[in-house]
């Protein structure tokens, strides 16, 4: 799966949790999920579970600690898919 495709699906999953819609509209690979999009940090758990369901993958808890940006999400998912 292309990174762009993964990125679109990641954005769709994140959208309900986004508090800064301007930052979301201008998002890029380096957009930070907590700091820029203002997603409640507790909800990151639900976002990761939704990634698992969407892409039929498993993401280890320790891998989640390294996820900061949208690009990090796409790379993590792409690695699991490969």
């Amino acid at each position: 799966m292309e990174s762009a495709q993964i990125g679109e699906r990641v954005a769709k999953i994140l959208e309900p949790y986004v508090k800064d819609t301007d930052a979301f509209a201008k998002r890029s690979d380096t957009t930070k999920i907590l700091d820029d999009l203002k997603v409640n940090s507790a909800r990151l758990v639900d976002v990761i579970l939704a990634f698992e369901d969407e892409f039929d993958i498993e993401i280890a808890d320790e891998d989640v600690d390294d996820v900061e940006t949208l690009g990090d999400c796409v790379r993590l998912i792409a690695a699991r898919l490969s």
Partner: protein
Amino acid sequence: MRRRVVVTGLGVVAPNANGVADFELALRKGRSGIRHQPGMAEHALACQVAGVPQGVDELCQASFAEDELLAMNSSHRHAALAALEAWTDAGLERPDPDDDRVDWEAGAILGTGIGGMDTIVERVVPLVSAGKARRLGSTAVEQVMASGVSARLSGLFALGNLVTTNSSACATGVEAIALGADRIRSGQAERMLCGGSEGASEYIWAGFDSMRVLCRGFNDEPARASRPMSASAGGFVPAAGAGVLLLESLESAAQRGARIHAELVGVASTCGGHRGGGSMTAPNPEGVRRCIAGALADGAVSAEEIGAISGHLTATAADPSEVRAWADAIGCAPEDLPPITATKSLIGHALGAAGAIEAVASVVMLEHGFVHASQNCEDLHPELGAFESSIVRETRPMEAPVLVKAGFGFGDVNAAVAFRRARRA
């Protein structure tokens, strides 16, 4: 000197209406909210009818953010909708989530009898049993913790005063109002969102079904199933929903120029101590009497001032003794009992939300000067013959200025409140 407490906002999610305006119509017209429930039939409950609010998810989609809804089970949804209506009805602005200001003078006592049973049944038990606890995500705890329902309101309205959840079984809703009144009277808060909420789930109702306290004989006639004070009453009809009152100090209401629906003049809570006939599941009549009499004394209400009684009246064997307790507490002969009605005849028994929904009905009736007909008691219970003229079987006007509402619950707990019609300026 204690401060006066008034009701400036009302909100309701009931099986027969959403919103106070339609709820008033439903009460006047005797519209039933009891329907056949396929889920109860599928799970082989003997009772297969219940009062479940309709159209709640659609209303929530229009009122709350998508991520908020992901963490709101049915009890939370009922509470949030009713509280939002009460808050805006009081003329208060819904704060912007990005506005960091907190209203330190406003709080909430929003109770529940059972709480997040739907979350437990649909998510916690299946996932944990399957060894998938990590898949519960972040929203399970806030939906099963008892205080989640009041905490939800704090986030919606930036409440900075006491925010808590009381739980006293079927007395919960009335008790929340009594507790909120105390908070304002003592000067500790200016505004309190008070009431109760309950979710809809056959898993909540199954235990009552097993106790044989639910109605079993009217599964094919839902509107006739809830029969308080009737000879053919065979148990209560379970229900869900929420009622919320915005209680406010008279000073705060006057300062804001708020419309006053009614004054909350008297409150009381008692427990029968599981003595004198009381138990975990039955009331000590002396505890009931003291509770009602306590609310009347607290509000300096005389018998002739009582225009109506909104009973607890569930359609179980306890109804006749409750009616006798009202007469004992008021100190009147059976034929002099003020008009008494049972809102549960229309909506069923919403457990922890019941008293709050019925308190909303009480304030509506007081404000608009009517007492709604208590349905399905055309065959009056034989022990209630002496009270016949007081039992409201056709909607009638209410003249006298006070309405008394009580709620009684498992645990032998009781709560009562007395509302007085707001004086016209």
